[in-house]
């Protein structure tokens, strides 16, 4: 009884990276549109290729559903006159809804009666509604839009044709001067222009025109032919999912082929070969069963197998030229010593206000060495750190990295090893870029970890100091990722150094930089920035916001100790045994806000409970410090817990705000010392306690 509907947007080649998302948007928005318009259907299927986005709606009903809408009017009190007749307000309301007072009924809402009418909204013909679907097509969002010719529409690429069919009829509308029609176009070279008579034929008609409109089918075809080549050539072709995805979105009719290159190129670093194949040419590398790279590659042609040998030959020629270039760079690069490249770092700006790469390397060197010495590394390690930092960026100056920018660090490690640098120094050049994304792998070696922290801290501190603070989605220097990286490395390694100490060392490197204005403001921004990143990490471990804030309030300190404290407090907030302790400590925190005093004069400790609290405090302080040193959150909190009863006794027997100024000051000082000790653990006053009796 229903009819099938098809929309197809014909485009000039869409960027591969936009296609999946655009298809998904089209599907979701279509679904929404039909639901909002109360047109039921049986099924929605979406399609995409580089040249088209399409959606098929099967068995859509021919008329919108008719509905009754309940409209609320004034309260019954207002709607009726004293004698029980309908008031002017009631009459006006019904008129306004196109009804009469006869349609009124009443309903109670929160004890008050209101008048209501039921309005019937007749369903319109689906056919009349469909031209408005135009908005859905225009509303697809792309990462980057353009204009063309004299059109004002902004879209990913120019629209060249539109198919809009309701059964066998054309749904009339126009976008960017392109009117809808039943005409579509097949594969650019193999296919023809065709007229679609029935929406349901779409997939089959297009296949005859050498277009596989279903992206999953296309992907499967590619994968199947890769598997076939694997068997025929007795090789292994590791299929990188994102590459498969991209290749699938570069073709309408895929045909895979094998090409080869000269064996001598296998002497190049493997990453260079793989990058040339995958990133530059979108080929799949080929390996032996043992995982050795073979001088072969798999390409995917957008077409059939006619004259496939010409295509293979052409692709081989391009790869040969690329690899010859790489070979030339490799040989030329290694003719010069490593110091040549290090010196050249003076010629490249890291960031306008933060100086050259040479200056950066020197700062990183200083941060790394100081950090290493603070975590008790021996002098031979410090020497290694110094060297590793100095050569950490040298590869940026090589021809190879300038050509293959994505290989920064990787080429550094390879070359450094060839130059005869020690293994862990060479590895640290690669590792200091890690983690390369928020959840990426962390450096394996101690040296790599220290260098990574130093390099990232320098960037974060430098950028934030000169006002380059990330906002919204804008984070061009990747500061969020780098700050998260620092925290994750600190967490992983459990070094005995606080985040603030490293931050302070990094900040010192910039003390002569004229672009940094007020150090106190900078420190505040940095504290907030790292607090946000730390919060983000702890939130992922299911720790709640208020507990995190309480723990990070003063500083981040040793990050895993902070994490341990947060985990402990997350338990305590539900633990009714802790209630009496938290009440005592929070009461102290609140009163201590009123004072700066910390000098306790034992002569003014008048009452027994006062003296007892002071004695308990001194004992608690000792235990607390010990717990902190041992990074034992349990022990530290236990020390504070011991103060519970003395605090309660103190409040029971003493007036803090005594009339005698000396007594008052002394009592505030005592409480303030306890408050400082408590705050060192966490600001308990911002936790929302959840013990239920």
């Amino acid at each position: 009884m229903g009819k099938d509907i098809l929309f197809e947007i014909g485009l000039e080649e869409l960027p591969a990276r936009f296609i999946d998302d655009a298809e998904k948007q089209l599907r979701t928005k279509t679904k929404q549109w039909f639901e909002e318009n109360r047109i039921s259907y049986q099924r929605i299927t979406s399609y995409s290729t580089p040249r088209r986005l399409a959606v098929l709606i099967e068995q859509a009903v021919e008329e919108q559903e008719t509905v009754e809408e309940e409209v609320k009017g004034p309260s019954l009190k207002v709607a009726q006159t004293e004698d029980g007749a309908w008031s002017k307000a009631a009459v006006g309301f019904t008129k306004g809804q196109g009804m009469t007072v006869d349609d009124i009924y009443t309903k109670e809402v929160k004890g008050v009666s209101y008048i209501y009418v039921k309005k019937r909204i007749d369903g319109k013909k689906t056919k009349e509604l469909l031209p408005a679907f135009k908005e859905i097509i225009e509303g697809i969002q792309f990462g980057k839009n353009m204009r063309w010719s004299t059109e004002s529409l902004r879209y990913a690429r120019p629209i060249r044709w539109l198919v809009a069919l309701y059964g066998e009829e054309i749904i009339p509308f126009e976008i960017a001067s392109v009117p809808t029609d039943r005409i579509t176009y097949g594969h650019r070279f193999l296919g023809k222009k065709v007229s679609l008579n029935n929406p349901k034929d779409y997939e089959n008609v297009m296949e005859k025109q050498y277009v596989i409109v279903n992206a999953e089918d296309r992907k499967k075809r590619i994968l199947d032919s890769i598997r076939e080549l694997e068997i025929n050539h007795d090789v292994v072709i590791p299929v990188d999912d994102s590459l498969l995805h991209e290749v699938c979105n570069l073709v309408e009719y895929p045909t895979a082929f094998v090409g080869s290159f000269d064996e001598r190129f296998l002497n190049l670093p493997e990453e260079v070969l793989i990058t040339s194949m995958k990133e530059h040419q979108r080929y799949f590398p080929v390996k032996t069963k043992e995982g050795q790279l073979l001088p072969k590659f798999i390409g995917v042609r957008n077409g059939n197998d006619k004259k496939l040998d010409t295509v293979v030959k052409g692709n081989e020629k391009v790869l040969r030229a690329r690899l010859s270039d790489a070979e030339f760079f490799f040989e030329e690069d290694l003719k010069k010593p490593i110091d040549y490249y290090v010196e050249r770092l003076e010629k490249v700006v890291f960031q306008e206000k933060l100086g050259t790469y040479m200056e950066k390397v020197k700062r990183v060197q200083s941060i790394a060495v100081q950090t290493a010495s603070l975590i008790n590394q021996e002098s031979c390690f410090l020497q290694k750190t110094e060297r590793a930092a100095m050569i950490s960026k040298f590869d940026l100056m090589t021809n190879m990295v300038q050509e293959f920018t994505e290989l920064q660090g990787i080429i550094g490690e390879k070359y450094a090893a060839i130059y005869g640098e020690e293994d862990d120094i060479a590895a640290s050049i690669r590792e200091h870029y890690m983690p390369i994304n928020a959840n990426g792998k962390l450096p394996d070696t101690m040296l790599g970890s220290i260098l990574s922290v130093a390099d990232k801290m320098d960037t974060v501190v430098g950028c934030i100091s000169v006002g380059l603070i990330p906002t919204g989605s804008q984070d061009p220097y990747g500061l969020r990722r780098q700050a998260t990286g620092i925290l994750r490395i600190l967490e992983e390694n459990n070094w005995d150094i606080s985040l603030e100490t490293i931050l302070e060392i990094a900040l010192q490197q910039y003390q002569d930089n004229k672009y940094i204005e007020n150090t106190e403001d900078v420190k505040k921004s940095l504290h907030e920035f790292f607090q946000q990143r730390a919060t983000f990490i702890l939130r992922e471990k299911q720790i709640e916001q208020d507990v995190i804030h309480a723990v990070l309030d003063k500083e981040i300190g040793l990050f895993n100790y902070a994490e341990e404290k947060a985990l402990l407090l997350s338990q305590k907030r539900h633990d009714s045994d802790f209630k009496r302790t938290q009440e005592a400590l929070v009461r102290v925190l609140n009163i201590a806000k009123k004072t700066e005093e910390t000098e306790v004069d034992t002569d003014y400790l008048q009452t027994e409970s006062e003296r007892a609290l002071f004695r308990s405090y001194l004992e608690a302080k000792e235990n607390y410090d010990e717990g902190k040193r041992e990074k034992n959150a349990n022990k530290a909190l236990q020390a504070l817990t011991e103060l519970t009863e003395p605090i309660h006794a103190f409040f029971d027997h003493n007036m803090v705000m005594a009339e005698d100024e000396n007594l008052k000051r002394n009592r505030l000082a005592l409480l303030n010392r306890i408050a400082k000790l408590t705050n060192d653990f966490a600001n308990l006053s911002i936790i929302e306690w959840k013990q239920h009796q």
Partner: protein
Amino acid sequence: MNIQQMILTLQDYWSKHNCILVQAYDVEKGAGTMSPMTLLRSLGPEPWNVAYVEPSRRPADGRYGENPNRLYQHHQFQVIMKPSPDNIQELYLNSLKELGIDPLEHDIRFVEDNWENPTLGAAGLGWEVWLDGMEITQFTYFQQIGGLEANPVAVELTYGIERLASYIQDKENVFDLDWNEQFTYRDIFYQPEYEHSKYTFEESDTEMLFQLFRMYEKEAERTMEKGLVFPAYDYVLKCSHTFNLLDARGVISVTERTGYISRIRNLARKIAKAYVKERERLGFPMLKKEDQ
């Protein structure tokens, strides 16, 4: 097909599709886009269809004639159509057929590539066209030129002549290409490639070049104030080439570098504005021509 025949074929093809054929512009430049026939004429509402060969100088790419792919000077075949025709992709693909490239026997793809030239305040969206995996053409819809919105939008096709020829003639080394039946690329261009490389990297008088840069810059400012857009633009091109020579020689420090680029960009922006204003003052004559 030799290079000469390729050029003749492309010229013939595009002239049949309403392009004005002009000759290479006589001021040194790094790309066909920088010719005033593209950069200035793409601005404003007037229709404009043009095709030309542009020898393009990239001093830093000079390799003394020893590299099989890199050149101090290469050739671009440039097509500009404003407003961009609806069938521009078909027009382009047919031009490849004219060059003997049958799409059914090859793999031709349009791979996303967005173009940007910050020095000229210009940006566009489009593709690099791949022929069996090799980039042979840059295909760009201009969105912004000299800091101004492109409206209507012009489309730019830049064929890399040497690239295309090396495919058509199946040669690995650019110097082995046949220019015509008698002479190779080496016969014609080897000596200038060597000498220009030597000059650029070893012999240029940097003091003189710095002085020239300042003089050209001043002259560009001065002529522009007089409303003389085209002469002013010539001096901007001269600034740009002089800067490229200095840069290739490695005598411009990193901090200075950004400064020079922004000086050229500011000039280019001013000229773009002045050009549109001048055309407006003239009543956009080519717009009227189209109406007749």
